[in-house]
């Protein structure tokens, strides 16, 4: 099985430049590819190598590099192996191509990434909000959105003051370290 994998991966390498691949074990392959070549690579993977199941699309925000990393996990029912195709695109303006015409499940993942990261996919059938329909803030999964700060700014907490605490405070004790202090 892995032999076949080798053969087609070699073929693939001849077709597309700028592909790096790395086999992690018999069922996991990591492929790094430039963003311009990714749709073609996926098309090859799907068409030639039976990787018909798009397991997931993950977006990772590498804010320090100013990039979004997109990882396409595709699975072949025949060779029983999973290829993770990694590509990086600039964080700004954050537009990329949809692969909906290759893999229909991409619609959900692309929509999800759009609302969570603000990354727009051209050609995706539906870029409307799904989960955050009533959210006006920035795309929350971006690293520059500090969820905890947002919470502290917008919410307040239950102010407990039970009798035992009052008693302790009378005796000179009381709260010393709040959980917020150690975070």
């Amino acid at each position, binding site marked *: 099985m892995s032999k076949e994998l080798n053969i087609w991966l070699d073929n693939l390498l001849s077709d597309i430049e700028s592909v790096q691949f790395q086999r992690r074990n018999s*069922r*996991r392959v990591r492929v790094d590819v430039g963003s311009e070549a990714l749709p073609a690579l996926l098309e090859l993977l799907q068409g030639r190598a039976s990787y*018909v*199941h*798009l*397991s*997931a699309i*993950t*977006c*990772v*925000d590498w804010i320090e590099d100013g990039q979004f990393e997109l*990882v396409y*996990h595709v*699975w072949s*029912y025949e060779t*029983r192996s*999973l290829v*993770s195709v990694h590509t990086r695109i600039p964080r700004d303006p954050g537009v990329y191509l949809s692969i909906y015409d290759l*893999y*229909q*499940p991409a*619609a*959900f*993942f692309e929509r*999800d990434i759009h609302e*969570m990261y603000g990354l727009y996919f051209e050609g995706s059938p539906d870029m409307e909000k*799904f*989960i*955050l*329909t*009533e959210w006006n803030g920035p795309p*929350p*999964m971006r690293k520059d*959105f500090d*969820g*905890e700060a947002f919470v502290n700014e917008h919410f307040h907490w239950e102010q407990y003051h039970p009798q035992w605490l009052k008693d302790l405070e009378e005796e000179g004790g009381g709260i010393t370290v709040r959980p917020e202090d150690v975070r």
Partner: protein
Amino acid sequence: MRPENYQAKNHPPSHEFELNFGPNHPGIEGNYAFKVKLNGDTVLSARADGGYLHRGFEKLMEGRLWIQNIALVPRICVPDPVPMEVCYSLAIEELGGLEVPERAQWIRVMQLEMSRLAAHLFAFGGHAATTGMYTTMFWGVADRDLILDRFEELTGGRVYSIYNIPGGVRREVPDGFLERMSSLLDYLESRLPDYDNLFFRNQVFIKRARDVGAMTQEQALKWGVTGPNLRATGLAFDVRRDDPYLVYDQLDFEIPTEPGGDALSRNLVRRSELKQSIRILRQVIERLPSIRGPIRCPIPNPLAWNVPAGESYTRVESSKGELAYYVVSTGGDKPYRVHVRGPSSMHAVQVLENLAVGSRLEDVAQIMFSLDACPPEVDR
């Protein structure tokens, strides 16, 4: 008192109208919404609306230590929490290069199958309730509760066991647990004919569920359907066998399939999987006493645990389908990114929308329940 200060809307003279399913609706699994456009009883278009259970898990996990997240992950799928814990732990173990002791792997398999049993009992119980068959639901949930009792004994928690941590499991199996588990399996097996009589062979149910929400195998593959729903279209695919994890490759079990691709087939697949899970559990009960050794490999102090940089994609077969975690570590004490690929994120949105179109109003709830779509997995 008049109700609200609303004006009755004048609908345009048309047979078409819109109807909201949920979020507060018994035909919805969990807290989810679904809007359908109807012509008479036929659904013209359907639109899912999620986010009612959105907590921003992936964001929360980036802000917590690796080990703290084990308390968080089971919440992602409430009816079937164990695969979440196991999958997350597997991902970290892969990143950190931890060797899980064999005994822990077997205990994990045991939990996973217990959880699958519980989730399936819940799933077809819920499906039965959408067709008005409350007795099945009452039975199913009550029998599921017996499994939860065993979970409580094993893990200390009824629903959220928080029992798996990276490196293994948290406690040794209590004395006499396997015997009690074994007698529970006997009981469940003896209940299966009752369920058959009441539900799976019930002609009214079969009439009701046949050809409801049917999809072909090609459609299923195109839409990214996984798990029992895919097997109900005749494709024998199971992550446990085809991308094995833990000790599933040492276990003897079959992958039930059904040809129909409809709500009935999906339920029948679940029914057969009950049997297979019981079979696996019996093997585990038989093997576990002979596998000795630690139940956890040593892990660093959780407060100061830097998982080596890298990324891992681990997959687990949950009761709903393919569950996957993509975890990125930059070598810090917290994950840099965790992506949860909930199986229902396909089923509850695209597949549900596609299947609902052209179906009947009375079948919409059935379709959702037969897909066993779990909204918290979608919303996260």
